[in-house]
């Protein structure tokens, strides 16, 4: 088992900087004009995974952005992934 202080010594400042970046990103989005966006909705939902006490937060964040359906789609209309599932109607 790795010592917790060592992990914090190694990664605390990096994680702190990334957390501030996330806060600034959300401020930036909220400052901007525009309506709802499924990507931002998924982002906010994923943040809730950080509040979990279990040690599977990374998996839960990934699942929050994932397509939850099981069947192949009829046809691929794009090659790109955008990072969040747009829903059945827009997939």
């Amino acid at each position: 088992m790795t010592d917790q202080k060592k992990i914090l010594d190694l990664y605390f400042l990096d994680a702190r900087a990334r957390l501030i970046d996330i806060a600034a990103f959300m401020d930036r989005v909220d400052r901007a004009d525009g309506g709802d966006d499924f990507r931002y909705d998924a982002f906010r939902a994923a943040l809730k995974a950080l509040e979990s006490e279990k040690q599977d937060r990374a998996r839960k964040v990934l699942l929050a952005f994932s397509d939850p359906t099981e069947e192949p789609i009829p046809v691929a209309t794009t090659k790109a992934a955008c990072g969040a599932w747009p829903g059945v109607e827009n997939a």
Partner: protein
Amino acid sequence: MVSRTTDDYQAMAIAGCQAVSEPAFWAGFDRSSVQGFYDYFCQLTQHEPRRAAMFGLPHYTWLCINPKESEDLKLADEVLSIILEFMDCPNVLGIGEIGLNKNSRNEMLVLEKHIDLAASNDQLILVHTPHLEDKRKGTRLILDVLKSDSRIRPERCIIDHVEEHTVGMVLDDGFWAGMTLYPETKCTSNRAIDILELYGNERIWMNSACDWGISVPLAVPRAAQEMKRRGCNSRQIDKVIYQNPIEFMSQSPRFNTPEGL
């Protein structure tokens, strides 16, 4: 590596890379005909090995039509028909990177044809799993297709680009898992090391992406350095960085273990 400069080869050799394994890949644009693939396969089996050899690096490759170009079934069938011609080239390790991109029905059909081609010719399989929001579902679909073919032995297949939400299902089903290190998408070095801590170091490796987009050819050596910082010893690092890839790829008679490893 076909889209990288010789500076990358030189940096990789200096950083301790011992061999290159390059799957057939999407070019960043759709090829317009089967002839484009023929030329690409010639590049992967003839020209690129010569370029890598200039830096003392053995070059291995995998053949397929990438899932990003699998929506066109006619083109896919034409490409599949020419793969046999290249399968006996001395640097070909198997079929890859096959898999899914957007998890469509046509992609599934072409995946099944690739699996049949590999099984019929006793080839190793390298699988690309989809990006971002499509990865969880696509990985599940791919594993189910592979498991439904009784000729497929999971220990001869590596499922690449796993992350925290897919690595468990891959390892639980007996397949090898690959963690592709990218600056933004897929996996970072730190997360890959976390996965090793959680899931152990059997049937798992890390790979650097060296493609036409933003990617870091030295990602694996940097991850090795991070493992050292995290407290891993040289035996643990050697196992993941060198011995595991050697164990998997040695299942192909064409792979030669680098001297000294």
